[in-house]
């Protein structure tokens, strides 16, 4: 028996929790080198970045990678990342001493309407006693041509509180890329 009758618009006064807050977002109207959120307040416990993205790369089809940086630290060797990746045929476990989030956005040579997506959790970002750990779920699917799903982590070996967050592919973000930053409060 199908269940119908869940009419979302008929629900009034939806409960809004106070522990998950929107901080800032941007939807790009033209090709842009990077998206940077600055002056992130230390009033949350965790951050979450949610994006749909396409790179400006014209040298080949996707999937493409993008970098994540904290507090303008562009020294790749200050980061480590591990990823599990599936491409529909093979699986891989990837490690590198850098800040690259792998294989989850499309490029400018892919279908114009196809973007990749990622949800990135930055844990205990304001804590000054811990290195910072980031968890990533991302993927891009292009029907018959290709698909990649990735799950992984990025470590920034620094105890500084994160106040700036940067995401950028090697060859710019394409227009209509959308990136949003949220804060999650602790008790």
């Amino acid at each position, binding site marked *: *028996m*199908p*269940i*119908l009758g*869940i*009419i*979302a*618009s*008929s*629900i009034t006064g*939806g*409960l*809004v*929790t*106070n*522990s*998950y*807050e*929107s*901080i*800032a*977002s941007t939807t790009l109207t033209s090709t842009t080198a990077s998206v940077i959120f600055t002056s992130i307040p230390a009033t949350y416990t965790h951050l979450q970045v*949610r*994006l*749909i993205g396409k790179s400006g790369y014209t040298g080949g089809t996707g999937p493409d990678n993008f970098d994540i940086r904290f507090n303008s630290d562009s020294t790749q060797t200050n980061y480590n990342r591990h990823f*599990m*990746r*599936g*491409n*529909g*045929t*093979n*699986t891989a476990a990837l490690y590198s001493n850098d800040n690259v989030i792998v294989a*989850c956005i499309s490029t400018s040579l892919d*279908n114009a*309407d*196809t*973007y*990749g*997506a*990622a*949800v990135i959790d930055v844990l205990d970002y304001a804590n000054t006693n811990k290195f910072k750990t980031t968890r990533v*779920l*991302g*993927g*891009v*699917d*292009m*029907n*018959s041509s290709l*698909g*990649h*799903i*990735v*799950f992984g982590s990025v470590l920034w070996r620094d105890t500084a509180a994160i106040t700036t967050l940067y995401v950028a592919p090697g060859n710019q973000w394409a227009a*209509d890329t*959308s990136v*949003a930053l*949220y804060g999650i409060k602790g008790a």
Partner: protein
Amino acid sequence: MAAGSTYTPIATTTTSGNATSVTFSSIPATYTDLIILFNGSVSGTSGDLAQFNGDTGSNYSSTFLRGDGSAATSGRVTSSTFINPGLTFGTSQSTYIMHIMNYANTTTYKNALYLSSSVASSSYVGAAVGLWRSTAAINAVNFSTSGTNYVNGSTFTLYGIAAA
């Protein structure tokens, strides 16, 4: 929408009467992303399938990565009539979180990211990405099972997240 509290519950369904599908309709376009939490089980060893806006055309595809306790595998489903995240459940409790990204924009095709787990002996822990090749804003999501029905008491909860 101005910055501030979000992650708003929109609707919840608890299945009964051996339901074969669950539909959230008339979803407002006032959020940026949708999140659906499933906690339940299905009859037999089967999966959970998703469609948007009642589109039954071959406009969906998916790529998944999963582990069954012995090996990690990856697969794809292309030109399908639904998103099949390949995350087979069983009659034991299963859960997944589904992120439908930028569901109301009318510029891009729509992505869904999944993270799933099940404790059934013949099921998986895994992740998946699904694609709906349409630029239409999503206003309805339909779930159905490739098995017979959802076990009574399975829950679907729909949330909306609004960016600043």
